[in-house]
């Protein structure tokens, strides 16, 4: 009745890939080219792109078995729906078609009553499929060995955020992050002496330097007053994040405009030399969402990330009981 063989086995595969997937690849570099044996994991569809997981090391087998146990228990619990990888594959394909220029990174979803591990597995499945199809560029590179996994799966790739909420629906948003948006992000700690701006104190005053030197910008994301380890995740959220003390509307207005004015008035994007209309979110406060983050007292990092003009994203709202798509996001409503 679950139609869940696929989802169940992909759940099993998650811990394996997380724990030692890349190690398995490194130790048996040509293993992925061998014909896939049929062993205890039977679902060929699920594992078509995960051959390296079929003969895992003992610790991985333990992890797989443990995950299978847990999964079986969870299945008995109150989970009305689990996504099938085909749903995700289709979504990613649709998304890639929409996106046209596929270079990918983070994914975001807001599950209601669904199985996060199953969703993660389905997403990873879909990412691997889309990479195989040439819809996405293989971007997952092991930092230590420099080896590209070839399928966009790896430690921390793709980036998946989950947030539970009270609504009786599942919202999934997919965002493509290209290279320049990532490697030209900046981070600095305050207080500091900022080029051309002078002294920046260890408060909101320091949050002023947002330089984007590559593509024209669609959207700039600033995370302030967050421990450095949070920066990446926070700047990846579709919001401007500001410290807690600035959460009133009045104060946000006073903060926003100096920042946005300077961004929008400067020809700061050197690629589009002399082009001042580089920010497609220009001057529109609706594009900013404010979140409050409580920092550690002596930690005031400012991180600036951006999405380029070719900002690519797609989203769906799913019925939590059937997995059916209730509506698409971003297809007509282009507001963030």
């Amino acid at each position, binding site marked *: 009745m679950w139609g869940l063989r696929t989802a169940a086995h992909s759940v099993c595969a998650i811990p394996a890939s997380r724990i030692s997937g890349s190690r398995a690849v490194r130790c048996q570099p040509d293993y992925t080219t061998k014909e896939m044996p049929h062993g205890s994991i039977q679902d060929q569809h699920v594992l078509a792109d995960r051959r390296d997981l079929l003969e895992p090391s003992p610790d991985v087998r333990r992890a797989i078995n443990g995950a299978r146990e847990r999964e079986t228990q969870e299945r008995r619990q109150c989970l009305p729906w689990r996504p099938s990888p085909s749903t995700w594959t289709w979504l990613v394909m649709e998304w890639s078609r929409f996106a*046209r*220029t*596929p*270079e990918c990174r983070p994914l975001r979803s807001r599950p209601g009553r669904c199985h996060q591990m199953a969703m993660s597995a389905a997403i990873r499945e879909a990412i691997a499929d889309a990479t195989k*199809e*040439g*819809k*996405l*560029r*293989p*971007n997952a*590179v092991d930092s230590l060995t*420099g*080896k*590209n996994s*070839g399928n966009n799966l790896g430690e921390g790739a793709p980036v998946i955020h989950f947030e539970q909420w009270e609504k009786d629906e599942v919202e999934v948003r997919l965002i493509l992050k*290209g*290279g*320049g948006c990532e*490697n*030209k992000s900046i981070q600095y700690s305050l207080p500091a002496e900022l*080029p*051309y*701006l*002078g002294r920046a104190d260890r408060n*909101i*005053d320091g*949050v*002023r330097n947002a*330089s984007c*030197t*590559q*593509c*024209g910008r669609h959207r700039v994301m600033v995370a302030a007053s967050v421990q450095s380890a949070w920066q990446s995740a926070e700047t990846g959220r579709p919001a401007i994040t500001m410290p807690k*003390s*600035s959460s009133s509307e009045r*104060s946000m207005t*006073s*903060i926003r405009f*100096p*920042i946005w*004015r*300077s961004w929008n*008035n*400067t*020809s*700061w994007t*050197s*690629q589009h*030399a*002399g082009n001042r209309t580089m920010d497609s979110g220009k001057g529109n406060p609706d594009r900013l969402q404010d979140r409050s983050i409580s920092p550690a007292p002596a930690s005031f990092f400012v991180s600036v990330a951006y999405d*380029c*003009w*070719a900002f690519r994203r797609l989203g769906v709202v799913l019925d939590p009981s059937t997995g059916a798509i209730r509506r698409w996001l971003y297809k007509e409503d282009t507001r963030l």
Partner: protein
Amino acid sequence: MKMARGEGLPITGREIRLTLPLDEVQVRALKVGDVVLLNGPMHTGRDSLHHYLLTHDSPVPLEGSAIYHCGPVSLKRGDKWFINAAGPTTSSREEPYQGDLLRKFRIRAVIGKGGMGGKTLAALKEVGAVYLNAIGGAAQYYTRCITDVSGVDFLDFGIPEAMWHITVKDFPAIVTMDAHGNSLHAEIEHASARELSHHAERVTL
């Protein structure tokens, strides 16, 4: 030319049509602001390739050639590779390498996005080479300019980092750093800095 026109790039007739490989005279004639349409073979290269080439020979002759800072999406069908997307990547990452490689291999054109720094600018002037800016995010547009993928080296670097040998037709780009020491990127940065300094007022709650 037809490709560029068909995709909506306004052709003024002042574009400079170049056939690769280039010689020094052709390159020295280019000035910042010139729009060029490249034709012929070029090679992609990113961090891994640049690092490698510092201490090794190139598998293909690079004299007079163009290096395209690009990590493509490539697919193999049968024995033949195809490029699905090939937009420019951030050139500033190659700043530590580029000047030395320009001198070592006599490369005449570097294509990428975002411009490069002083070390590269000096090498461009010394060697007689140009930096050509392509538009980041327009990978599909540039992909249509690729007429052939003649081969690939260093596939073990991974698909994006490998050295892809491609042939292009009317690949448009703007000269933003020329062989005379001019850099549009440096000019824009200075202009932006002046404007930014006007917004240095304190932010208060």
